[in-house]
């Protein structure tokens, strides 16, 4: 009875690992020569690093979805997640190659929510804390594009230092999976096989991407990576019905994104900013910019708290993510959600 799911989960994990690893090896060898690269501004000497490493994640997720699709196992959920990742990844590719405008990007990422709406692999109920459930199928459907734009762009704005977007997203995904497992064993009702399948499709490519993107980065994930990772996280939480755990886990991302926007006063692209949030000296020491016009990002706040180099700031960001993900697990353990 369990043979088929276990076979599919194992095959998805292996395919996801192998395909993303192969693509990342190709990207690290060829993309700088092809001119698809960027400077690592936070390091002395500003080394040139290949961009668009997120392609490995997008292709890895698509390849890892195939066993479930071919063997007809939770097809609508798997295809819903795969198409969301592909659609957000496509927006990221366009943005990486031909910079999208500050308004176009969130609008296009919102439109990438269409596959989820059409395939409808969710219950349409919003599970709040203390067992409160809102049955809002129509409002929920309308909320999906907005949530996708918020989550994808929050992950995108969190990609300020080596491995911050990929590392924090790995934590969020693992936390969401643990939440589903905990809920399954404490109260039932959560499909643990479906959660394991979706986790086995997304986790391996994300892990490989993190291994290449962590400090010191061998590859930048680009908007291709950050937007598609955001898409995967949202699709996972919508299919599993764990939106509140997602919001708690993403508190550092949401805080960063929200205050970026509120301090600039409008939607913006990083390249449009005249004042950078942080100042990097020749030896790699980082200072918070004291200009009032500079956006109040999380990185600038952390630099103002006395964290003076890239490694220290990355550690500080990861500590904040550990705290928010810990709070998510605590909420479930205490039975608050």
């Amino acid at each position, binding site marked *: 009875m369990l043979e088929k799911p276990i076979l599919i989960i194992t095959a998805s994990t292996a395919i996801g690992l192998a395909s993303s690893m192969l693509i990342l090896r190709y990207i690290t060898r060829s993309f700088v020569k092809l001119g698809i690269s960027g400077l690592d501004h936070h390091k002395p000497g500003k080394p040139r690093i290949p961009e668009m490493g997120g392609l490995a994640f997008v292709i890895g997720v698509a390849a890892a979805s195939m066993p479930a699709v071919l063997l007809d196992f939770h097809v609508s959920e798997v295809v819903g997640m795969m198409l969301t990742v592909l659609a957000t990844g496509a927006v990221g590719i366009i943005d990486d190659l031909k910079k999208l405008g500050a308004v176009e990007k969130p609008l296009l990422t919102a439109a990438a929510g269409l596959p989820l709406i059409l395939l409808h692999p969710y219950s349409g109920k919003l599970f709040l804390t203390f067992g409160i459930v809102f049955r809002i199928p129509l409002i929920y459907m309308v909320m999906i594009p907005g949530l996708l734009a918020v989550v994808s762009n929050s992950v995108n704005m969190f990609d300020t230092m080596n491995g911050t977007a990929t590392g924090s997203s790995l934590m969020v995904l693992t936390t969401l999976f643990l939440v589903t497992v905990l809920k399954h064993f404490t109260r039932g009702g959560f499909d643990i096989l479906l959660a394991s399948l979706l986790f086995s499709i997304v986790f391996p490519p994300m892990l490989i991407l993190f291994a290449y993107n962590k400090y010191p980065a061998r590859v930048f994930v680009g908007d291709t990576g950050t937007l598609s990772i955001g898409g995967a996280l949202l699709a996972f939480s919508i299919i599993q019905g764990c939106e509140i755990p997602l919001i708690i886990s993403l508190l550092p991302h949401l805080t960063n994104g929200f205050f970026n926007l509120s301090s600039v006063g409008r939607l913006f692209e990083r390249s449009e900013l005249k004042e950078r949030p942080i100042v990097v000296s020749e030896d790699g020491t980082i200072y918070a910019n004291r200009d009032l016009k500079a956006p109040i990002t999380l990185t600038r706040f952390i630099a103002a*708290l006395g964290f003076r180099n890239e490694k220290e700031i990355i550690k500080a960001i990861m500590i904040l993510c550990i705290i928010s993900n810990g709070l998510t697990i605590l909420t479930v353990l205490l039975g608050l959600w």
Partner: protein
Amino acid sequence: MSRLLNLKPLILLILFNYVVIIFGSYVFYTIQVNIERTLRALPRLLVGFIQASVGLLLILLWIFVWLSMYKHLFTREIRKDAGENASSNQA
């Protein structure tokens, strides 16, 4: 450990939002239910409009407090940071 203590303002912000998410949704739900019960005699559309307006007001209030806290904490830290840098430069 001392590094963790340096992050106090940001941890405080995360905890504030956590409390709002956990208890806020319960408060939100209770207010909505009470509005519906109290205004039962009024037309359904009007009650829905009042519920939506109150909901929006609560969310805006949350965002306002969140924004004010963040700005206050950030301004305090950036002043402290500037003071520390100035004194280290003098030394």
